[in-house]
């Protein structure tokens, strides 16, 4: 459980660019053995959604938004020793950002949630060329592949990515998610067979448990 007051302190520190304060808060939560999934959803995801809203409403600058993202991304590293130490279940997922998509933190958190559930979660990073992603998938032979999209204007890029992917892997399960879909595009994604839209990290975990 992450208390509202702690969340507010964390968010303020994040927006002020106070990396060390944020670091201390997250480290304390990890030391207190707070469920990592809770830290991901109730601290990282919630604060990043808020940062996104503030930016969209012109309350903070793009530099502010980038700094908050950069701090959050570096804080994920604190949880990795616990996340990767989990017992493996022998299943693999590859998560990638569409070509031209420069926001990667959401996709990375998705790969981490898979890791938390014992999967091997490979994350290919921002702006991954589709040829590289397809080559990696051929090598890794995952059970599932996921694409993340943060900016709706990149939807066409994502469509091209899905189509290129489908021509090589017609039967592989495909997950799509990201903040872009708050503004639309879900119907476009649903046209592709074997493709599921993931709304949130909670939704993702429920789906992982069904797999």
């Amino acid at each position: 459980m992450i208390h509202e007051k702690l969340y507010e302190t964390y968010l303020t520190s994040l927006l002020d660019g106070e990396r060390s304060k944020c670091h201390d808060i997250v480290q304390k939560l990890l030391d207190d053995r707070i469920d990592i999934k809770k830290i991901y959803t109730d601290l990282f995801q919630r604060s990043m959604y808020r940062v996104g809203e503030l930016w969209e409403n012109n309350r903070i600058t793009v530099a502010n938004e980038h700094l908050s993202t950069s701090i959050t991304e570096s804080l994920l590293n604190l949880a990795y020793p616990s996340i990767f130490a989990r017992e493996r279940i022998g299943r693999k997922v590859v998560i990638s950002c569409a070509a031209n998509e420069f926001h990667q933190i959401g996709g990375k958190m998705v790969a981490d949630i898979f890791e938390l559930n014992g999967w091997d979660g490979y994350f290919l990073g921002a702006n991954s060329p589709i040829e590289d992603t397809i080559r990696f998938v051929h090598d890794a032979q995952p059970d599932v592949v996921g694409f993340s999209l943060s900016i709706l204007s990149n939807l066409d890029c994502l469509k091209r990515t899905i189509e290129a992917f489908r021509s090589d892997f017609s039967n592989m399960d495909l997950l799509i998610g990201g903040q872009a879909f708050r503004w639309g595009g879900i119907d476009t994604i649903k046209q592709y067979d074997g493709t599921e839209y993931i709304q949130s990290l909670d939704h993702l975990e429920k789906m992982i448990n069904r797999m």
Partner: protein
Amino acid sequence: MEWDQHISFETNAYFKDRAPVLFFLLSNGGKIVETNQYAQTITGRHLIGENIQDLMVDFNDTFHLPTLINDPSKEHLLNISTASGLPQSFYFSFKKVMGKIVMFGRLDTEELENMRKELVSLNQELNNIMRELHKTNAQLKRLNEEKNRFLGMAAHDLRKPIGLIISYSEFLIEEAKNLLDADQISFLNTINVSCVFMKHLVDDFLDVSAIEAGRFELDLQPAFIHEILANSLQLNKLQADKKGIDLQVNSDESLPRTIIDAPKLEQAITNLVTNAIEHASPGSLVSISLSCDQRFMNFSVKDEGPGMAPEEMDKLFKPFEKTSAKKTAGEKSTGLGMLITRKIIEAHGGTIWIDSRVGKGTTAYFKIPVPKG
């Protein structure tokens, strides 16, 4: 006030207080007569009355006002000293107006944007590498645990049959010595010696496997450390005698009983004394000292062997690493003894260190804290 005057007034006010552009009004000699808020914020200085030359970071002495004002349409890339102490590049233009010089400076926004993109991308790459590093580290840890489990199991299963071979070979050497010829006795001795070494190796493997798996625990009981040393010397005496080595012992027998794991500490002391004997030149001296002060029990063993170069010291406590210092009678080593010894000393809250010089011999020291009360 006329409309255009009004606009001009507002523009000037905005320009002076808010615009992200450097503005300086200079005298012909380069003295700053007027400036704007942005220039003062960027430089962290009041600026009025200063010479513009003093603000520039001019490595090649190229800032020359009369030349710069020659072409008002041209922009010049120049550096100024900022409040952070770092130079910052601006594109400057100069114009002469009514006997004074007007100087504007602008940032290259395209360059800043590229830098920001590059920074974000580098940061992402760094974090992705960190993630890979953590992931690979966890995989290596799992593999290492598996290796230790296998090592422990294999060593445990080997220990019993090796013990049987040792016992039976000893029995045969003793009981059948009158029935066998010299070659056959020698074969039996080789079997026995090899199996004793193999047993040491297996015991060391078991210790290392327990250490690496975090299962290395002490069984602490009250004991006299000088008795432990005496036991260890008894075990080593035969080997020392064979090489004609004089074991000189300075042990304080009035040392109080203390809380230690006696078998493990004996193993550590035996390892160190055996090492000293094995590296000592035949007929030389090995000095052993055991003493106690208010806080620590101090042990040292010094040999007059070949010694080691400083760069080899780090290898000493690593598994299976061997230094160039050869044992003087070709004795075998598992390469694990010093690692185990260090772990035993550290588990007692102590420290171990080595002092060695090529051609001068080696001294191994350890100290362990004396429990209070």
